[in-house]
Structures are given as C-alpha cells and as structure tokens.
C-alpha cells in the first residue's frame, strides 16, 4: 500500500511519527516546527503544514538564526530526547541558519534544519537568491551548512527523501553524533508528488542508547582510580545529557572524590553538595582549580576539555593521568587519557560497583570552598540599597529570589564568567549557559525554547546591552506565544567583557565602548543615547526600570511571577576590584602582539610570555 503525497507533505507526516525512547520513556521526537516563509518553502513545506495542521505544531519566528537557538534551547531542556525543526527559504533565510547550526553542533544538541534549496530541475537558472559560481553547477548557498552539520543531505528527487529522512533521524537521536542535521529541500522537489510506502510514514521508535563500558577499559580505569592519591572529577555537559546526576552523586559520595564542573556541567550536583567544588578552569573557583593543579588523576565525565576548562593547557600538573568517561571515542581519547567509552550514567554506575568500597578522603578543600563562598557573599553584598547595582549584585538579588524551578540562560559577555564563579545552582537544569559556541544573541530565543520545554517554570534570559542588540527579535515571538520569559538587560554601554580583555592584552579597550565618535576619530565621546527598555517595550514587552538595588529587588520579584513576557532593564555600576567577583583563577590563552610601540601591549606581552611557559601537553 502507498500514499500519494508531496515530498513536503510526506516529510511532515514522517516527522510527526518519529519517537525517541530511553529508560522506557517514549516521546515524540520532532514536537514542533519553527518557520519563516519565503518563495523557497512557502508552497512546499508551508502548504504541507497547513494541509493537516494537527500533525505539526508551528511557531512563527523573526530571524532564522534565532529560530535555531530556540530549537536548541528546547532540545537541551529536553535532554536531547525531543527536538524542533526549522524551515526557511532558499537564500539569506538559509544562510542565516549557519550560526545556529554551528552552535547546535558544537554543543551536541539536536536540531533539524529544513532550508529550501534552488530548483533541482533547473528550469530557470538562476532562481531568485540563487548562488551562481562558475566552477560548479551543483553548489548552492546551503553548502555553507555542510561543515556545521552532523548530517547533510540534499533531496534531489522525491524518493531520495526516504533514506535521507531516516539518516537524519538516526543522527539526531544518536548520543555520539547528534547536532545540527540539515535536509536541503529544492523548491521544486518539495511540491512534487510521489507514492510513499505506508511503512515510511508509520510510527517509528529511535532508542537513545546507553552503551556500557568495555570490560578491559573499565579494569584500566578502576586500577588508575584506585592508585590515585589526589583524584578529581571534571563533570561536563555529558552528565546532564545522560541524566547521570544521581549516578555521579552516588559515585562521589561513595568514593569521596570531589567534583569540579565545566560550564555545561555546572549544576550536576547542587552547589551545597559536599562533593561540589565549583567551576573549573579560567572562569572557575579557586577551590576547583587548586584541586586540579595538585591532582594526580582527572576523571573527566562527559567533557570536551575546552581551553576554558584546561586553562589553555596550563591547569593540570605535569604527570597527571586522565581517565575520560565519554560516549564519544573522540572525546574519551583526549589528553592521552585512558578511554572509558560509555554512556555517562552506565559508566559511573559500573565504576561505582567495580571500585567496591574504595574511598579517597580529601577534606582540605572544604575550607577553600568556604573561603570561596565568602568571596561570593562579598561580591553579592550590598552596602547601599539606594545605589545602582553591580552585575554581581544583580546576581545576588536573583539568588535571593529563585528556587530550583528557575532556569537561567546566558551565553556571552562577562556573565558566563561571573555565573560560573558565583552562581549557586540549585537544580540540575537551572544553569543553562551556552559556552560551547558562546553566541551573543542566544539567550532570548533560547528562553523561548526552554519555556516551551518546561512550561510553568520561571525562565530568565540574562543579557548585556551588546548581546541584546545582536538579536532581540524573538521578543516579538514571546509576546505572540504569550511565553512569560523574563529578560534581564544589564546596561553597561558597550562590549564590557571584551573591553576588559582588550585592556589585558594591550588593545586598550579599542572599539569596545558604545560612545559617540570623538574629534580624534575614536569612541571616547559621551555614551550613546540608547534606551533598550524603550526598545523592548516597543516590541510588546512589559518593561520594569529599576534604578537602585532596592528597586531591583522589587522588579525581579515582580518579573518572576509575571504572566506576560517581562523585561527588567537596569543600568549597572562597574564593580571595583575589591567588591566585584574574584578575578580569574586560571589563565586563558589569547595571544598578544609580539612587537608593539605601545607600552600597554609590551607589558601585556611580557605577561603573556610568562604564562605560555606553563603550557603542557598531556600525552
């Protein structure tokens, strides 16, 4: 038996019938499609979505990149067991996907991209927005998506959809491979009819597997852990994707081995769990970094070991041994590690069992953790309730208001550093900081996706003014969908974070402040008369404008319970070095000019050369 449908109609029917299953829980895989229509998808996918509207919920976006961010937020909040699709036209709509796709792939988060593509039959070359390159007839702008997609296919004939769609689902639901998956859909093919076998459109279940460790690898790992005197666990996002938090907690409690977390891993243990030592690396805590610096064994669980985690190769001491529990062999082998290729939960459970009663008591770090908490308290402390808050004080006020149900979203600027150092994470999914791609503009659209995946929970997008200006468009979508996200805009008049870095690397804050051009051609004039609160209000948000810490307490409390999208717009004070967050506890490699006529760069280079000598290659 077969069913006659267009390619687009068949694809929508197919997507509505795909499910994931893990731990006995079955869920629909593609639960909604985001879209902006142009000539490249309106008559194909657009018509298919309206043909049977009950099949596929639809969300209207404002910017294609933002739609991918929303889908990624949804997938992360859904532990990668549910995802969204994104449909676009064939030109700028398609290339706007690239940034979002890269973010999804870097973070191993599933999103299905469905850009339209130029005519497969080429009846009229070039169609509007078609890229023509003289050296190849089969290249379209969608080829930009190849390097940022974990699977890419162009459906050049109707029946080619069958293998392409199945391969797309396989990759989306594969915990090793998942990321952005692109099915480029030529405009003419989308509308073509075909007789589809019924089995293609039938319900299908994709088991999200939990591979167990190889026994020999497990033996090696157990031997290394038993032999270690000062072991440390580095927990990454893989712990969360696997929902291995309980297994990690049990492992840490049984063995007494302390746990440090990457940006993606923060929250796997609540901040007040005795085994939790805080963030690790450049934005980490003194506690975790001191442990890392004196460790003889690192048990990495679900981490990619980015340069922030390793302090650009300077954090871990010479001679340290790595055991990497990772579902991907690629990551398990990093840093010359003993690989333990397995699902994080299965691997931790197996390690706990195999280690028996082995226990490593190291308690000195408890003192350091207390000291660090005192530094957090100091950064949060408010001397004058009637003064403008610092960025850290905004976090401090938020800290007094939230419980485990709140979700904080951030990706770029100085907030990821402050949050990693300071934030007291209360629940495994509270800390949603996208620091794989650290994409300015991720926060607001991601908040939509998170709010869709976790209805009823307070979802906070924390943004600076620079990030806000990159991508405020999805505020309109929040208003349209009545999603009561809370957007906190911290106004500091420029790219403050990179301004600080600029100063440190001898670039003298060049081009980082938002100020009028001065008579000498620089940007040192008065601050720009920008009112982002008015901007958010013009897009339909309710806007609160606290001026003091006292106002801020009221405004954030109000926003937290608001039932409409609410923006809290606050001018922040620059913290001095005494009252602000603690400085970086580990290095980050940003190469500095080797020669310069300017003293600041010369001095920065001297500092740089000093740090470089601490780089180590772990083999």
């Amino acid at each position, binding site marked *: 038996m077969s069913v006659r449908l267009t390619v687009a109609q068949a694809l929508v029917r197919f997507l509505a019938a795909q499910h994931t299953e893990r731990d006995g829980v079955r869920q629909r895989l593609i639960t909604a499609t985001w879209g902006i229509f142009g000539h490249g998808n309106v008559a194909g996918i657009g018509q298919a979505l309206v043909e049977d509207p009950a099949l596929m919920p639809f969300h209207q976006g404002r910017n294609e990149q933002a739609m991918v961010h929303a889908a990624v937020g949804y997938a992360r909040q859904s532990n990668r067991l549910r995802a969204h699709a994104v449909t676009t036209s064939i030109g700028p709509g398609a290339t706007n996907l690239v940034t979002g796709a890269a973010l999804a792939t870097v973070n191993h988060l599933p999103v299905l991209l469905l850009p339209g593509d130029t005519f497969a039959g080429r009846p009229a070359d070039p169609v509007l927005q078609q890229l023509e390159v003289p050296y190849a007839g089969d290249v379209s702008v969608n080829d930009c998506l190849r390097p940022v997609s974990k699977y890419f296919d162009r459906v050049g004939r109707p029946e080619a959809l069958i293998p392409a769609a199945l391969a797309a689902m396989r990759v989306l639901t594969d915990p090793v491979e998942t990321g952005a998956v692109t099915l480029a859909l030529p405009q003419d093919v989308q509308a073509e009819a075909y007789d589809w076998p019924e089995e293609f459109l039938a319900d299908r279940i994709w088991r999200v597997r939990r591979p167990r460790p190889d026994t020999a690898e497990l033996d090696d790992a157990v031997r290394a852990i038993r032999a270690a005197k000062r072991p440390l666990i580095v927990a990454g996002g893989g712990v969360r994707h696997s929902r291995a938090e309980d297994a990690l907690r049990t492992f840490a409690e049984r063995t*007494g081995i302390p746990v440090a977390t990457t940006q993606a891993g923060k929250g796997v243990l609540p901040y007040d769990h005795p085994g939790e030592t805080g963030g690790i690396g450049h934005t980490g805590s003194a506690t975790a970094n001191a442990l890392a610096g004196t460790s003889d064994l690192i048990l990495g669980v679900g981490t990619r070991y980015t340069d922030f985690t390793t302090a650009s190769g300077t954090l871990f001491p010479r001679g340290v041994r790595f055991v990497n529990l990772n579902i991907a062999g690629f990551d398990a082998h990093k840093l010359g590690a003993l690989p333990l290729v397995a699902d994080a939960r299965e691997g931790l459970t197996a390690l706990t069992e195999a280690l028996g009663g082995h226990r490593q*008591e190291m*308690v000195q770090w408890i*003192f350091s953790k*207390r000291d660090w908490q005192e530094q957090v308290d100091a950064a949060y402390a408010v001397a004058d309730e009637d003064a403008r808050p610092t960025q850290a004080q905004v976090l401090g006020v938020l800290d007094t208001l939230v419980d485990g149900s709140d979700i904080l979203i951030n990706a770029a600027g100085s907030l990821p550093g402050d949050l990693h150092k300071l934030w007291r994470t209360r629940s495994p999914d509270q800390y949603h900081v996208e620091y794989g791609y650290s994409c300015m503009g991720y926060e607001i659209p991601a908040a939509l996706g998170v709010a869709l995946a976790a209805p009823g929970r307070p979802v906070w997008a924390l943004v600076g003014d620079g990030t806000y200006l990159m991508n405020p468009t999805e505020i309109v979508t929040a208003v349209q969908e009545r999603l009561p996200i809370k957007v906190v805009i911290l106004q500091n008049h420029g790219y403050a974070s990179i301004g600080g870095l600029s100063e440190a690397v001898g670039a003298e804050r060049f081009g980082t402040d938002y100020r009028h051009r001065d008579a000498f051609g620089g940007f040192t004039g008065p601050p720009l008369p920008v009112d982002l609160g008015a901007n958010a209000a013009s897009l339909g948000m309710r806007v609160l404008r606290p001026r003091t810490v006292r106002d801020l307490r009221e405004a954030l409390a109000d926003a937290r319970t608001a039932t409409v999208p609410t923006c809290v717009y606050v001018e922040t004070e620059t913290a001095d070095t005494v009252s602000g967050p603690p400085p970086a506890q580990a290095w980050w490699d940003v190469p500095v000019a080797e020669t310069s006529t300017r003293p600041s760069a010369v001095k920065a280079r001297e500092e740089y050369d000093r740090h470089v000598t601490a780089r180590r290659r772990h083999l």
Partner: protein
Amino acid sequence: MSTHHPASVDPPSHHPPSHHPPSLHLPAGTAARGPYGLDIDPERAGWTYSALRVLTLGPGGIHSFDSGDSEWIVLPLSGACSVRVDGEILELLGRASVFDGVTDFAYVPRDTHAQIASGAGGRFALAGAKCERRLPARYGPAPEVPVETRGSGNRARQVRNFASADAFPCDRLIAVEVVTPGGNWSSYPPHKHDEHRPGAESVLEEIYYYEIEGPGALAYQRISPSRPGGAELLAEVRDGDAVLVPDGWHGPSIAQPGHPLYYLNVMAGPGPEREWRICFHPDHTEGYA
C-alpha cells in the same frame, strides 16, 4: 607537665558556685545549642573554667568558631576531620567510634579562629578550658597517647591520657578518656578534687560525657557531697548524656553488663599548677590499682 600561673588571677573558687545549673545530669539533647548537640560552657555550668561541646558534621560539613578566652582540643568521637587554625591545617584521621581505640586530636589555642571540616562527616568533641596563656596550635598524634589499664578484676578499665597534665601541654585543660568494660566499675574508688591543698589535691571542675554501645544501654553515675550542701547525684545515664561535677566525691561510674561504657573527662581549675591531684573517699580506698 605543669604550668605556673600568676597568683593574682586565681579566683577563690573552691567554694560551691552560687548558681548551680538546675541539674548536674544533662540527658542527651537537653544542653544542645546552635550547631552543638551538647554545649556546656562555664556560664551554663555555673563555674569558671571547664567547657565541652559536641559537634556533628554531615558529609562535607564545616564549622567555624572563635576560641575566645579558652583553649580547646578537637577530639574525633567518630569520623575524620581537618582543623584549620592559625594558617595550618591539621588532618585528624579520627576513628570509627570511641570504642575503636585512641584517636589523634588537635589543639586550638585561645584568641583565634578555627574551622573544622569533615569529608565524610562525623561527631567531634571540643574540650575547652578558660585559660591565660596562648600556646601554639598543634597536632596530637594517636601513637603518642598514653594508654593505661587501671584497676583489676571488675574494676579494670582503660584510661587514655591524651591530654593529661603529663602527656600533652595545655595551659589549664586536662582531658582523658575512659572505657569501662560492661559490668565493671570505674571512677572508683570515689574521689574528689575540690580543695586547693598543695601537693595533695587540686581544684578541678569536671565534665563527664558518656557514650554507650547498644540500643537502650545505660550506666550509673554517683556523686556524693564532700561538704554540706555540696553536689549530690545518682543518675542513670545513657548514650550522649553529660554530668557536671563542680565538687564532691565522684564515682563510681557503673557500666551495664554487656555494654561497655565510654566517657570523656574534661577538667580545669584555678590552681597555679596544671595538675590532677585527687583525694580518695576515706570509706573506699581499694579498687584504684
């Protein structure tokens, strides 16, 4: 080891204190305060020197305190801990329980701030004495604790002199542990140390803190007056109880058959020497050896 004190700071405290607490027997939990499951300070005890706190820490727990005008010994009752004091971290290996043998301990001098942290959690005694001299913070190793078997037959017991005057330098604090096998008597014959008689008897306020193995297990503690109106008690004590001995003949401590009895003695007093000089009850002179 003895320590001299200027005579001028010695208050004449060999008279019964004017404000005895309501009871000399403090059942487990009744003297809890703040973070301490037991908190006996001189004010609460109605005397001048001796203090005892018992602290329970959960896994990863940490506790901060100011030593104030007292010296303290941090003594693991169960579990291990680290003590941070005066820029040093003293790692105490501790023990599984008080019946497991001697433990290492930490000395915390007066006028400082200290933190106690435990990875796996545990119960820790803080034996204290108001004092004058500030001695250095130190680690007390378990192998250096003199262990003595005192008495014989059904008076036999084990005494662990971890901070006796001879074993470990303090300014005023004297502290020892005693483990009495089930059915045996200890603190026997009854004795007292409530008069200043140079070379014969020293004035020491004393706290007993008991731990007893087994559910519902009990022991008996007797105090008989050494003078009219002096302290008197006959108490059935249980695990976690404490008894105050401001003055008077104390003993015996009677262990229930089948249930070994542990107690911690914390002592301090005004004497010019840090010394434990006692006087046996004239009616009972046998049983010490």
